[in-house]
């Protein structure tokens, strides 16, 4: 897509089955995740594209919503405040207090709440008409969030346990392991400090990437097969679009929840006494 600036939609609209046009020409792929920048050029150091626009717009929406709900909160809440409170309370009680406890967790509530709503709204862009692209399907966004969480829990570990204690924490030091201790420590160190942040980001990214690809596939196939007898197949494909849209709506929330739950468990690991 990025190669053709005149292209507005994610595929060519005049390509149909039985028209001598193969599905491979329109099928979604990696190119579906590349956008011609709205400002600047892809190869420039500075550019501005659709994903960035959605990311900033999403931030403004989240802040706008919570501003409207919490800027002048009432003891007896209005409807909007009640909805926002329910969301806030869900993350605070359901995620932070459940994993970190009220005493230790209170400090991290703002971060976890921000993370949850940020990830969720960025995911939800996937099924908003016209936008229809999950911001988190670009690895940069999950990577930034996972990076922030990584910096937080690593520095927390050093602060809580000192240098030696942190090292023991990262390596899962356990004398009773005896001979395999060096091996186990190497694996743990690798797993905790290198694999963990990577999987944290990629889990979110890959889910949204795959979800978007599936939605694209069925949407494009619906249009592509809309010719002659293909209309019957097109109907099936369209049903799948509806089903997948509903499923994505679910996955978006689940992935946001998983992301903050993992964040909490990392913080918990950093605060916990090593054995």
């Amino acid at each position, binding site marked *: 897509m990025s190669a053709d600036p005149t292209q507005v939609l994610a595929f060519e609209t005049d390509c149909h089955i039985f028209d001598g046009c193969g599905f491979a020409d329109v099928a979604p792929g990696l*190119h579906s995740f590349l956008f011609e920048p709205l400002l600047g050029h892809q190869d420039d150091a*500075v550019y501005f594209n659709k994903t960035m626009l959605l990311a900033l717009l999403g931030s403004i929406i989240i802040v706008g919503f919570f501003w409207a709900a*919490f*800027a002048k909160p009432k003891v007896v809440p209005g409807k909007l405040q009640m909805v926002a409170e329910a969301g806030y309370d869900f993350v605070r009680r359901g995620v932070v207090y459940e994993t970190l406890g009220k005493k230790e967790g209170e400090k991290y509530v703002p971060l976890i709440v*921000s993370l949850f709503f940020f990830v969720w709204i960025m995911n939800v862009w996937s099924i908003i008409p016209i936008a229809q692209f999950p911001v988190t399907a670009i690895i*940069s966004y999950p990577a930034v969030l996972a990076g922030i969480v990584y910096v937080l829990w690593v520095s927390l570990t050093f602060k809580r346990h000192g240098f030696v204690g942190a090292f023991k924490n990262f390596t899962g030091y356990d004398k009773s392991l005896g001979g395999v201790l060096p091996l186990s420590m190497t694996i743990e160190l690798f797993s905790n400090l290198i694999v963990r942040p990577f999987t944290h980001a990629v889990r979110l*990214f890959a889910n949204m*990437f795959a979800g978007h690809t599936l939605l694209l596939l069925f949407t494009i196939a619906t249009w592509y097969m809309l010719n002659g007898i293909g209309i019957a197949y097109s109907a099936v494909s369209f049903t799948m679009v509806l089903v997948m849209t509903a499923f994505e709506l679910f996955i978006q929330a689940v992935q946001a929840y998983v992301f903050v739950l993992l964040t909490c468990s990392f913080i918990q690991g950093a605060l916990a006494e090593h054995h």
Partner: protein
Amino acid sequence: MSLVNLAAGGEAENPLIPPIPELVIGLIAFVIVFGFLAKKLLPNINKVLEERREAIEGGIEKAEAAQTEAQSVLEQYKAQLAEARHEAARLRQEAQEQGAALIAEMRAEGQRQREEIVAAGHAQIEADRKAAASALRQDVGKLATDLAGKLVGESLEDHARQSRVIDRFLDDLEEKAEATR
């Protein structure tokens, strides 16, 4: 066209390599959200939630106080009721005892009066009998002397003799009566 184009243009980037500009925008976007929520909006709502919690707890405390008071008043009423019942039972018992005593007393009084009347009757009868007996004795004596005088032809009117004869006669009569009894 795209796949072919991408292959030709060599543009198929690894989707796991994050583009730097998007990292920056992502960071900015998140910092905006975190900044507003952490610095202003969440402290705001926390304060209100705390106020609400206090208001609710105050309400609960008030309700608890009211309930405790209601409970104590109820207990007081129950105690009073029980006392009243007890009092009533005591009064009833007392009245019963008094009634029984009264009846017994009246019965005793009746008994006494009856006995008195009976005794008086007996005494009257005895007196009457005695009077009748003495009158009868005089009459019988007189009749007998009159009869005997007429038979003997001799006046037995001399009082002393007469009385002696009569008494003897009557004594004989009584002795005979005693003997036959």
